[in-house]
């Protein structure tokens, strides 16, 4: 079990992490998700022992490892740009961690070689051991980096933007494969990403970070369906944001009263968030669309199994995106629609 307690870290005047607390169960696959500068990489580097916190503790199975050097923490780290040793063959790269052990802990040369071969087989690079990293493709290098990290049998695997430098197709294959590997080896893994799709697809739990604080920790379902903050709601998945006011328990957009329950939200300025697929169209008749958002369709295209409709909302002077069933007849550009969110969340706007 990995426990992070009250970790804070500054780089000069810049607060990178502020009072972070997090517990990771054995066998979990965790994503640290956030925009650049959110502190996610710093947090992972502190867990690894590559960076040191200003205050707080990192515990591995209840034991404080804060003062332990990176080499003694037993973590495998896969670097964003792989950090392969260019002058070593692939096999030598993989074997490096074993070959630098103290003599009494070091396996024999034959064993190291066999182990390296075995790991290369595991990452589907059998037979490429004699190549140099420069002779491999990006996806292959990534897997060499992974095999090298796994060679030291880490209790914790850390991956920094593991798919960041790969092209889309390779990325998708490698993602699925990595998930399989994680389960097969019974590892505890943490990976850093700014790609919410990657986090939603891979992780058991997602830690959403912004400006050095954790905004929400939860499963993909929780983070997506019940975002704890406007930031999470906005960052994870697609969202429409509408500035509204709550008065007497009713939501108003300018003079228009929306047919959405305020759920006892306090009065004041607020932001209404709803996802493009959580909408229905109000009927076309006069007065039928009274409680919805009127939009003029400005663009229309197919997106997967849906119609994506972009419509200009005059009252807001902004574009609202909605998804309509592909089986339906799509609306024409220029037509007015009235959109009623079926699922939405309201956040106060004063705080941010």
């Amino acid at each position, binding site marked *: 079990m990995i426990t992070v307690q009250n970790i804070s870290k500054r780089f000069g005047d810049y607060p990178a992490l502020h009072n972070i607390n997090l517990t990771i169960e054995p066998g979990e696959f965790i994503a640290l998700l956030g925009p650049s500068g959110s502190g996610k990489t710093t947090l992972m580097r502190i867990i690894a022992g590559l960076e040191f916190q200003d205050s707080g503790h990192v515990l591995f199975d209840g034991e404080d490892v804060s003062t332990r050097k990176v080499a003694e923490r037993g973590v495998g780290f896969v670097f964003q740009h792989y950090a392969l040793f260019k*002058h070593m063959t692939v096999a030598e790269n993989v074997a490096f961690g074993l070959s630098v052990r103290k003599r009494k802990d070091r396996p024999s040369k034959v064993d190291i070689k066999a182990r390296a071969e075995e790991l290369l087989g595991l990452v589907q690079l059998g037979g490429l051991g004699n190549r140099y990293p420069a002779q491999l493709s990006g996806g292959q290098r990534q897997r060499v980096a992974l095999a090298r990290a796994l060679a030291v049998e880490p209790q914790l695997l850390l991956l920094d933007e593991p798919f960041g430098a790969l092209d889309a197709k390779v990325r998708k294959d490698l993602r699925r494969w990595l998930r399989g590997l994680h389960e097969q080896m019974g590892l505890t893994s943490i990976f850093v990403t700014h790609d919410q799709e990657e986090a939603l697809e891979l992780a058991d739990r997602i830690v959403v970070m912004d400006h050095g604080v954790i905004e929400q920790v939860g499963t993909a379902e929780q983070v997506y369906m019940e975002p704890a903050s406007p930031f999470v709601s906005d960052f994870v998945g697609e969202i429409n944001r509408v500035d509204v006011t709550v008065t007497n328990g009713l939501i108003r957009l300018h003079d228009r009263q929306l047919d959405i329950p305020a759920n006892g939200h306090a009065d004041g300025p607020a932001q209404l968030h709803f996802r493009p697929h959580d909408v229905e169209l109000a009927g076309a008749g006069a007065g039928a669309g009274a409680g919805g958002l009127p939009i003029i369709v400005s663009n229309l295209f197919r997106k997967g199994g849906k119609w994506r409709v972009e419509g200009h909302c005059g009252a807001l002077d902004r574009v609202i995106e909605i998804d309509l069933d592909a089986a339906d007849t799509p609306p024409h550009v220029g037509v007015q629609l009235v959109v009623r969110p079926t699922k939405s969340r309201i956040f106060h706007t004063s705080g941010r």
Partner: protein
Amino acid sequence: MNSPFSKRNRWRQPSVLPGFGLTFGFSLGWLTLIVLIPLATIFLKSAGMGWSDFIKVGFSERAVAAYRLSFGTAAAAGLVNAIFGLLVAWVLARYSFPGKKVVNALVDLPFALPTAVAGIALTALYAPNGWIGQYLDPLGINVAFTRIGIIIALVFIGLPFVVRSVEPVLADLGKDVEEAAATLGATRHQTFTRVIFPAIGPALLTGFALAFARGVGEYGSVIFISGNMPGKTEIAPLLIVTQLEQYAYDGATAIATVMMIASFAILLGINLIQAWSRGRAGA
């Protein structure tokens, strides 16, 4: 010269930019006139000498002693520079300290300071009554007018070659590679010997070879401090000058030819090192 614009001539790929004929023609012509023809004369003159005469003057006892001295001292100085040049490059690439920019500029002093100036300055320092020599003299150490003096002059001349070869490679070597070694359990010492040193090896070797090549041919900074005793502290370039002053053109030419072949061999070696390290590490 064939017209480079001829359609049948496929040695050049077509380009929309004008001026190839002018610039290529001029630069090749100038190169031929200033460099290639003059250099060729030395080989033609050697060839005209006949093999046995060439061996006789080119490998006379005095000449062989001069080669041995020139190559030996250049190798020794190159080695000193490989060690200290690496140290200087490391410090410049890795650490920040007050005055670093000045130090960085100072490293190029040997490129900018005329060799004759360096020669008399070093002699003034290491002569028995000089700033440094006066402390070495009582210890029985003679620097000026000995091989040690020659080596010191060549260390001065060669240092920037090593520093400027190694420093960019050290700076380019990603921090993440060293972190990777650390996460895999390597000690700092293991990281240096097994990750950093092999990565900068080719650059260090190149720097050594450049310093060595320069040292073999160096004249101005050496002749003041070397004492110039034939057979003892007479370097090969000086022997060429001596032969010339005695109108012994054959001797001068033969020695020059031997030295030039050696230089070209070193140059070839440098290119091979670089091609090899490029091929291994990828472009």
